[in-house]
């Protein structure tokens, strides 16, 4: 099955070549003030644009023309007739459909006191290009640049809520919590003395009580005390220097000795206690 597409384009091209041409007859514009006083009225030429038009906030623009089939000279009603208002600088445009009678006569009115929604936002001093676009099934399309129009400044176009994400966002500045500071040295020194003061109290109390440790240095008890001291030394050494694996290893070895020494020491102590009793 052959593709029908090339055939379709061929037929379209043939139709376009044979399509009739549209033309405008007697296009004319009029600018009226709010008191219906005619400020400016000129016929439009499709070949040469007039001087730019200016509308005040209460003025009205009236545009009239007739659409003709060029060959036959008769008025036709095209399928689509649009006025395009285009702001070249900002790229905003508005399309306004124009009603055309069956005889081809068209009339368009733009009243600045009640502007239609199709007018794009305007900025001061920047004109809108006004073009007439006519489309028809049986005629070739027509596009005519009519004139440039200065309108009063309007509110700017509303910004899309996602607009910001299409531009580079502002750089992120991270703020960090300020470093915690140590208190002044004097306070630290005084506090250190205060915290170590209970040791003085302890030594004083023990000095007052004078507990008796008669068997501390006897050979059965001393090894246990020594291993306890060794444990504490090992822990301080760990705090200063050792790693976890090392301290656990040494502690494990030492605990064997501590268990043996402790067993003997406490058994002796127990005998002494029971013997005394």
């Amino acid at each position: 099955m052959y593709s029908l597409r090339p055939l379709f384009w061929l037929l379209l091209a043939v139709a376009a070549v044979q399509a009739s041409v549209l033309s405008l007859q007697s296009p004319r514009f009029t600018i009226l003030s709010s008191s219906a006083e005619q400020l400016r009225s000129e016929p439009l030429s499709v070949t040469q644009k007039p001087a730019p038009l200016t509308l005040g906030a209460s003025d009205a623009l009236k545009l009239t023309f007739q659409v003709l089939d060029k060959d036959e000279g008769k008025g036709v009603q095209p399928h689509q007739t649009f006025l395009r208002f285009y702001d070249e600088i900002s790229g905003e445009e508005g399309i306004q459909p124009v009603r055309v009678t069956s005889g081809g006569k068209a009339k368009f009115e733009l009243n600045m006191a009640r502007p239609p929604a199709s007018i794009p936002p305007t900025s001061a001093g920047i004109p809108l290009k006004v073009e007439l676009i006519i489309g028809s099934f049986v005629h070739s399309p027509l596009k005519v640049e009519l004139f440039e129009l200065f309108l009063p400044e309007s509110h700017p176009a509303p910004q899309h809520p996602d607009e910001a994400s299409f531009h580079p966002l502002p750089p992120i500045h991270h703020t960090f919590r300020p470093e915690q500071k140590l208190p002044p040295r004097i306070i630290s020194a005084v506090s250190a003395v205060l915290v170590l003061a209970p040791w003085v109290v302890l030594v004083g109390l023990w000095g007052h009580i004078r507990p008796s440790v008669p068997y501390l240095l006897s050979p059965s008890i001393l090894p246990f005390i020594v291993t306890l001291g060794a444990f504490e030394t090992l822990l301080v050494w760990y705090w200063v220097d050792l790693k976890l694996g090392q301290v656990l290893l040494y502690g494990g070895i030492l605990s064997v000795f501590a268990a043996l020494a402790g067993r003997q020491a406490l058994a002796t102590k127990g005998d002494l206690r029971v013997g005394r009793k």
Partner: protein
Amino acid sequence: MGPKAPAKQPQQVASQSIPATPASQNALDSLWKAYNDTTSSRLKTVDAFLVFLMLSGVIQFLYCVLVTNFPFNAFLAGFASTVGQFVLTASLRSQVNPANRAEFKEVSPERAFADFAMGSIVLHFFVFNFLG
């Protein structure tokens, strides 16, 4: 003593605001005297240690609250060491006290001391770990 008799009567509001009435003063004195007389020197040694631990913990806590809690891990390590050691020592004292022999039949004082020593070493290990 003279003041003793009227102190036994119901107190009025005005006199109750005085901190040390003769009656409470006497109570404290007799308590202290009883403690001194009845407690063995061994138990007093342990009690002194307990007092020391309490003081140490309180002072560290006051420092943390009043001055600064930086570095926090150091405070936690120090405070936890006093609290943990206090718990171990208090349990040792109650187990070793001859007056409590009926409560702790299965635990000999030697066993109690061995537990105390082991617990203290483990506590010190964790404290040094956290001290940083």
